C-alpha cells in the first residue's frame, strides 16, 4: 500500500554546506531506450534515504567522482520513497561516465532543487500531462505522484508522443496505465515499423498534437504540464492556447546549463530569472514575459 505523502517545501533539506554532495549508490540500472537508461539511487545514510523528500518536477545535482557534476531531473515520485530514480540520457562527460558504472558504485547527490510542480494548487482540477520524447522523464514523477494521490485530482490525461515504438520511455509502465480506468493514457509514435526484439506496436501512429482531437478537454478546470523538445512546445502550446487555457495553468519544464543548482553561478539564466531557483517549472505566463524561454 502506497502512503500519500504530504509535501512541505524543502528549500534546503540537506543541512550544512549546500555544495557538498551526499554519498549515494547506484541500486539498479534499467536500460530503457538506446542511450536513455533509468538509474535508481539510494543515499548511503539510511536516515537520509528514508526521509528524503522532494517535489515532482524538481532536479538533483549528480556528481560522478573525478568527472564532474550535472543537473538531472527526478523521474520517481516522493510517494514511493527509498530510491531516487533518474532517467539519464548519455550525452556529456558526466553521463558518459555514468553509463560505464555498475550497480553498487558510489556517486554523489545533492538536492532536491528547483520549484517543482504546484501539486497543492492543482488539487481538485483536471491534469493534462503532455510529453514529447525524453520529456516523459520529469513528467513521470508528476504523473505517478498524481496517480498515488488519485483522490486529489479529477481527470488525469496523459498524451505522450515518441519518435518510434522503440523510443518510448517507460513503455511497459505506460501500456499498463492504458488498462486503468482512472487515467486516459494516449500514446502515439511518429512512425512505426516492426523490429525483431521490440514488441509490436498496436497503438496510434501520428504526431503528438494530433492527440488533441481524441479527447474533450475542459480548459476551465485543467492544468497542463508540458515537457519535450522545442518543436513540441511550439505545436502543443498553440493547441492549448487555441482552447483558451489560462496562461498560468500551462506549466513547462525547462533545462539549462547549471553549475550550482542553488541560484549563485548564473549559467542557467533565462531572460531575467534563474532556471534552478525560479524554475525549472515555468508557466506560459512566465514565458511571455521572459523572451528567451523557448
Amino acid at each position, binding site marked *: 500500500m502506497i502512503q500519500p505523502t504530504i509535501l512541505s517545501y524543502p528549500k534546503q533539506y540537506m543541512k550544512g554546506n549546500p555544495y557538498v554532495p551526499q554519498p549515494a549508490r547506484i541500486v539498479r540500472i534499467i536500460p530503457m531506450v538506446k542511450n536513455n537508461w533509468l538509474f535508481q539511487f539510494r543515499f548511503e545514510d539510511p536516515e537520509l534515504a528514508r526521509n528524503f523528500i522532494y517535489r515532482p518536477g524538481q532536479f538533483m545535482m549528480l556528481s560522478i567522482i573525478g568527472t564532474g557534476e550535472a543537473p538531472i531531473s527526478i523521474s520517481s515520485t516522493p510517494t514511493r520513497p527509498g530510491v531516487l530514480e533518474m532517467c539519464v540520457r548519455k550525452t556529456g562527460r558526466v553521463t558518459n561516465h555514468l553509463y560505464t558504472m555498475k550497480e553498487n558504485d558510489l556517486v554523489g547527490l545533492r538536492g532536491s532543487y528547483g520549484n517543482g510542480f504546484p501539486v497543492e494548487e492543482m488539487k481538485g482540477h483536471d491534469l493534462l500531462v503532455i510529453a514529447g520524447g525524453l520529456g516523459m522523464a520529469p513528467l513521470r514523477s508528476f504523473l505517478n505522484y498524481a496517480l498515488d494521490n488519485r483522490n486529489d485530482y479529477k481527470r488525469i490525461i496523459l498524451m505522450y508522443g515518441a519518435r518510434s515504438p522503440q523510443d518510448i520511455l517507460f513503455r511497459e509502465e505506460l501500456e499498463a496505465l492504458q488498462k486503468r480506468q482512472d487515467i486516459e493514457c494516449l500514446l502515439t509514435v511518429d512512425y512505426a515499423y516492426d523490429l525483431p526484439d521490440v514488441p509490436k506496436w498496436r497503438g496510434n501512429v501520428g504526431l503528438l498534437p494530433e492527440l488533441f482531437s481524441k479527447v474533450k478537454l475542459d480548459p476551465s478546470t485543467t492544468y497542463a504540464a508540458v515537457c519535450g523538445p522545442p518543436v513540441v512546445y511550439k505545436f502543443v502550446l498553440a493547441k492549448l492556447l487555441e482552447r483558451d487555457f489560462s496562461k498560468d495553468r500551462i506549466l513547462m519544464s525547462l533545462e539549462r*546549463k547549471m553549475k550550482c543548482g542553488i*541560484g549563485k553561478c548564473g549559467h542557467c539564466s533565462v531572460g531575467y530569472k534563474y532556471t534552478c531557483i525560479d524554475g525549472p517549472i515555468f508557466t506560459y505566463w512566465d514565458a511571455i514575459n521572459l523572451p528567451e524561454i523557448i
Partner: protein
Amino acid sequence: MESVRKFGELHVPLRKDEDIFYYGKCENVRDIALDYRRTILPAKKYFFRPVEPLMTFDATKGYQPVEEDMDRKIVLFGIHPCEINSVRILDLVFGTDYIDNYYFNRRKNTVIVGLSCVPDDLCFCRSMGTDFAEDGFDLFLAELREGYLVRVGTSRGDDMVNGAKNLFRKPTDAELDEYKQRSNEVIKKFTRSISTTDLPEILEIEYDSPQWKDLGERCLGCGACSMICPTCYCFNVADEIALGTSGGVRKRTWDSCLFEDYALVAGGHNFRVNRAMRVKLRYLHKQKGFVDKYGRPSCVGCGRCINMCPAKIDVTEVINTIRGAVK
C-alpha cells in the same frame, strides 16, 4: 595602524604602477596608497576567491568540504563606498535561498574599514546610489584636513576604537561642518552619469534594439569586465584529479557570461549562441533581472569596466543610448 593588526592580517590599497593599484598585504604602513581611485581587482576577491577549492573527493570517501583557510582573519583597510555597497550586493546573492558558507566564512572573518574618496572621470557611483555606504563596514573614515571623521558601523568596529582610544576623540562642530562642506564639493565633481529611472522597463522595451547586435560585434568576449566587476559573481565548477589517483579537488573559478560556452549544454546546444545575446544578458541581468529579484541593480558605478574594456565599450554610453538620451 599597528593596533588593527590584532584584528587580522592588514590588507590595503597598494600602488603597482603610477596609476595602477591593487589590494594586497600591508608590509609597511607607509605603502598604503590613500589617494588611490580604483584597484584592478575589486574587494570581492577576499570573499569570493578567483579560484576556490570547494571540496576534495576520493573514490572511497566521497566528497569532503574544504575548511582550511576559512578562519584567516583579515582587516581590509581603505575600501571606498562603491565597493562596500558591492559587498552588500554580493551578500544578497550568496545569502539568499541558500547560504554560501565559503563566502560568509570569509565575510565574517574580514574587518572592513572604509575610506572616503573623490570621484574621477570614470566614476558614476552617484547615479547608482552607491557613493555613500549606509552599512557594510566596521569603521568608515571620512577624510578631513586634519585626520578623519570616523563612523562606527559594528560592535567589532567599536572594539577597534576601544583598542586604540588615544587615537580617537569627539569631533568638534567645526569638523562636522567641514565634513558637510566636503560632501557638497564632492557632489560637484561627478562628470559621468546614467539615469536608472524606469531603466528595467526601458531595457525590456529595447529588447530587440539593433544596438545589441552592434555591441555584440564590438565586444571581444574576453570577459575582462566580469573579472574586474565588483558585483559579478558567476562561477564555473570543475573537478581536478590528482595525477595517478582517483582523488582530487572540486574548484570553482570566476566565470563570465560573455564566454562562448557560458550556456552550452551537453549534447552541443548553446542557449546563447552569439555574442550579442551574451552581451545583452550582461546588461539585462545587472539592470533588470537583478532589480526584479533583489530590488536594486547589480552595478555600483565604479568605472572599472569602462577602464578595462579593450574594445572601449562604455557602460554609461550603452545605457544612455538605450534610453535614447544619446543619439
